[in-house]
């Protein structure tokens, strides 16, 4: 087998999963070695992947695999997150049960994501899509308890999406006689516009479920909150991006020529904007770190959809850039929250506090990640947001700019709550024993990803180069005057030199730090605890005076009219109604033999009556 071919690549990825499962019976070190080797080998093989396509027949369908610059970019994201994820799992999952199942499903999920990306036809895409869904379902329910419910919910939303996709795929196959995306695209334009709208609509709906776009985001908060932390990083960072990948493919490879393309994209952009605003408001309400991050993920995915749907070269660049960056900093956040959970067993923001001196590396990770998330220079998030704003303004979507600006500013609130509640505030006696997590398996993945946010902030060109070739593949003209290695330009001739910016910020930071160090921070200053709430009484030493409970109560009161209506509740209502219908239908089967006999007789009478009527 050709080792630069995609079959070999997938064979390594899937084969490693089963080998790791078997090795679990030998020794856990052997298993871990196989797991790590598998993900690193597939990450390395990405660089040597050849250009040939590969076809095989399966069940009367021709399946075709091959790489495109567009898929290679996403594969890069998967590889970038997969290696830290398995590394982080080694210690994190050591205490958990059924490790063999965990690694098996984790590696299958990763391999299936590669499979999705390297599918050149819709059926193999769907096959890998479903494999990814069930393996990630099994990962989500790994902990049992509430996770089971969350997992089933995740699967049902996903199934609704997946079957919407399959519906379209079957019809498209019937129309074009081929499953290849390019053939499908060619016969797609010959259909009547309404048919085009329906087919593309169902496809987009299906992919948007995985991306957690409102109104189909209901699975995300529960599934992200309940799945094991290392996997959540991959789940939110890479797996949900498969929806973005699919939407991009549908919008620009299949649907672009349709007369409905523009209105649908406008609608999607708005859906993305509303998603980002509402999910940000929800995130601010959360008191559980993982749920907070979950809603934050939904919000960030909303940005990406916004950029993706606008469809200008600049907005696409922004969307893909945020896709990568969100993967990186959200993985950092989930890792850090996982690290805190690993040491304290808590994710509740009302109970955690003052861990900064106990877990400094986790603190640093969260700090770097939220700087990136809040799009503050000099880290990578800034570049993405800059590109997005500029593209929104250029394409005259001023109202969307306001929405984006609103949610990006509001996101300060929840990231501040996250870092304050966990790491700042008064130290507690109960956390005295807490130590920082082990370096090699847990700190290293966090720090490595933190380095990525730093580097992409200064040299975004490293990421913009593959994005440009991906966009060129999708048919967007990317001129080289839009970016260079560390500079961003816009059409009004302004330019932003990131290298200069980091120099300025670095200098200011270093100077300030030096001054502070020499004049203020030479020795720790102890301040006496005083609080007006103590009404003059001197509080005891361990009395907690910095509460993080009801952190944003005024805000919540203000946002109440928006947040009191829940789209999730509506979808749950649909689910409940179907379930009640099922319960009602169950009563057709009364358990009484005479009733059943009557059914038979009535049915026969009906048939004969209908027959004679037709004659």
């Amino acid at each position, binding site marked *: 087998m050709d080792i630069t071919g995609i079959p070999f690549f997938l064979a390594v990825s899937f084969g490693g999963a089963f080998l790791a499962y078997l090795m679990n019976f030998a020794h856990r070190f052997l298993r871990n070695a196989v797991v790590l080797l598998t993900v690193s080998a597939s990450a390395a093989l990405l660089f040597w992947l050849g250009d040939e396509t590969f076809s095989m027949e399966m069940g009367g369908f021709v399946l075709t695999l091959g790489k495109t610059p567009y898929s290679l970019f996403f594969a890069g994201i998967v590889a970038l997150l997969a290696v830290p994820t398995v590394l982080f799992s080694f210690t994190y999952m050591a205490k958990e049960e059924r490790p063999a199942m965990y690694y098996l499903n984790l590696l299958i999920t990763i391999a299936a994501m590669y499979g999705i990306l390297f599918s050149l036809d819709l059926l193999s895409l769907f096959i890998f899509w479903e494999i990814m869904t069930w393996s990630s379902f099994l990962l989500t329910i790994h902990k049992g308890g509430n996770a089971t419910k969350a997992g089933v919910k995740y699967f049902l939303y996903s199934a609704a999406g997946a079957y919407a996709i399959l*519906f379209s795929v079957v019809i498209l*196959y019937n129309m074009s006689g081929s499953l290849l995306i390019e053939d499908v695209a060619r016969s797609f334009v010959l259909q009547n516009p309404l048919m085009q709208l329906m087919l593309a609509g169902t496809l987009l709906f299906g992919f948007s479920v995985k991306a957690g776009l409102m109104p189909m985001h209901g699975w995300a908060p529960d599934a992200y909150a309940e799945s094991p932390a290392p996997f959540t990083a991959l789940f939110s960072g890479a797996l949900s991006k498969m929806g973005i990948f699919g939407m991009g493919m549908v919008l620009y490879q299949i649907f672009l020529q349709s007369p409905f393309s523009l209105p649908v994209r406008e609608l999607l952009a708005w859906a993305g904007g509303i998603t980002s605003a509402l999910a940000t408001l929800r995130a601010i309400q959360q008191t559980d770190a993982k749920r907070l991050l979950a809603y934050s993920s939904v919000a960030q995915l909303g940005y990406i959809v916004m950029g993706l749907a606008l469809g200008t070269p600049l907005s696409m660049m922004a969307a893909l850039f945020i896709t990568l960056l969100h993967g990186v900093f959200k993985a950092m956040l989930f890792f850090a929250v996982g690290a805190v959970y690993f040491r304290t067993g808590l994710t509740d923001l009302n109970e955690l506090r003052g861990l900064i001196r106990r877990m400094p590396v986790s603190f640093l990770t969260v700090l770097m990640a939220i700087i990136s998330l809040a799009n503050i220079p000099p880290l990578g998030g800034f570049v993405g947001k800059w590109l997005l704003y500029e593209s929104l303004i250029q394409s005259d979507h001023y109202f969307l700019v306001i929405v984006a600006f609103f949610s990006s500013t509001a996101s300060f609130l929840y990231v501040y709550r996250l870092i304050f509640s966990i790491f700042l505030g008064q130290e507690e006696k109960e956390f005295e024993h807490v130590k920082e997590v082990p370096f090699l398996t847990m700190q290293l993945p966090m720090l490595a990803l933190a380095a990525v946010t730093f580097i992409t902030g200064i040299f975004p060109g490293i990421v913009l180069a593959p994005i440009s070739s991906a966009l060129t593949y999708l048919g967007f003209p990317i001129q080289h005057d839009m970016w260079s290695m560390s500079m961003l330009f816009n059409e009004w001739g302004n330019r932003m030199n990131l290298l200069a910016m980091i120099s300025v910020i670095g200098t200011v930071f270093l100077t300030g730090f030096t001054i502070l160090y020499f004049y203020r921070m030479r020795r720790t200053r102890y301040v006496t605890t005083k609080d007006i709430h103590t009404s003059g009484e001197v509080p005891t030493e361990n009395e907690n005076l910095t509460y993080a409970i009801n952190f944003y109560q005024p805000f919540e009161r203000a946002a109440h009219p928006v947040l009191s209506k829940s789209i999730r509740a509506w979808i749950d209502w649909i689910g409940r109604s179907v379930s009640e219908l099922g319960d009602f239908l169950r009563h057709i089967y009364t358990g009484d033999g005479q009733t059943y006999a009557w059914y038979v007789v009535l049915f026969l009478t009906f048939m004969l009556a209908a027959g004679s009527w037709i*004659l």
Partner: protein
Amino acid sequence: MPELFPLSPVHYVAAPLLAAFLLPLVAKLSRSFIKILPGLTFLYVLYVSAVLYPQALQAPIIEQIAGWAPPLGINLYYGPMAGLFASLFSALGFIVWLYSLTQMKQEPLDRFYILLMMLVAGATGMVLTGDIFNLFVFMEITAISAYSLTAFLREDDKAEAGFKYILIGSLASAFVLLGIAILYSYTGTLNLADLALNMDKVPLSVRVIVFGLFLVGFGIEAEIFPLNGWAPDAYSAAPAPVSALFAGITVKAALYALARVTILLFPFAGSMALISILGLVTLVISELAALHQKNLFRMLAYSSMGQVGLAIAALGLFTAEGVYAALFAMINHAIVKGMLFLTVFAMAGGSATLDGLNGMGRKKPILSLLFTLGAFAIIGLPPFSGFWSKLSVLTAMGQTGNYAMIAIVLATTIVEAAYFLRATGRLYLSEGNPAEGKTPLSAIAALAVLAAGILWIGFFPGSIDETLTAGAQDLLDTAKYTEGVLKD
């Protein structure tokens, strides 16, 4: 070897019947024969399949009983479709026997195995025979052994379920017999091929009535809504190995009969569309009814009805792709549902509830994995067998332009996923203690064969392509059927 002892399709029916007859006698010699003889019988029948089925794929084998040529004599028609079903039934019989070896402890075992072999023999007879009255007789053999097996455990509710089954089943027999009598009075023949050529002697209105009678008669056994009231009770009352056979064998035989009779005798567009619609209705109602089941066997029973509904909906298209898809769905269902029934029984015993699955992932990891595999396969997740069967159903519907049907099938699949995954999720709750009792080897072996089937078809769906295509052609090509039988 063939010269000395010519194999014939008759052996499919004769061998199990003979063995069933001999079983009480050999039981007098040694009790261990009771367990061994059925296995040997099924093995022999499988050997017959291995020899005859490849021949049938080339040209159908038409066997005249006692040398009387049709239309006067009874003939067996062993074509690709009948061969497929006969082989499937024998294989399932063997697997269920293997499983029962250690899992079936309820005495009297000799009667259990006698009934089991009669069930398989009757169902195989139904798919083999070329004579409509003979079809009725085999249907009765199947049904009577099915009634007795339903009530085999001798408890009140089992007896009640068995009684309901008899009540509805005898209606089925009466209607089918009535239909046969009417046809005979007009045409004077009972041979299916001969009947097909003489159907123009029957006035149209009578044909419609007879079709109605057959539809209800076979429809009862094929679990078409609203004729399937007996099924949930019977499935949950019968011992699990028998339920596996109900799902895998009796339904399939009745469905075969319905398809064969409809296509040969009533090939109107209306009758086919009607079958398709009934299939869809069955699918939707059964899947929804399963959603609230706490009893696992009832849940599987409703799911079974739903799966059969899916096969019927595809069958009703009566295109080559539609029949292909229906056959695929039936084979998939026979394997997967069989495995699910057997796994649940091995895991949680005869009265399994949804709660009984809690924490099984720790107590019985292999069985839990098998249940998960079965659940995924029945939902139709790739890369398991159910995916390809469901996909073939969908593409067949797509080819006839029935996009609404595709949407209905997919929507019910979400419902199906809901209750199967809820059950799967319970396996992995962290409750209970690890390692509790071992599952006997014979049961694991039987389940492993079925699991291997699921994976094999899942990864190599092309391997059964030829079988299914030939089966579909065999069913649809009525001219070939009648000419083949009446060539002399």
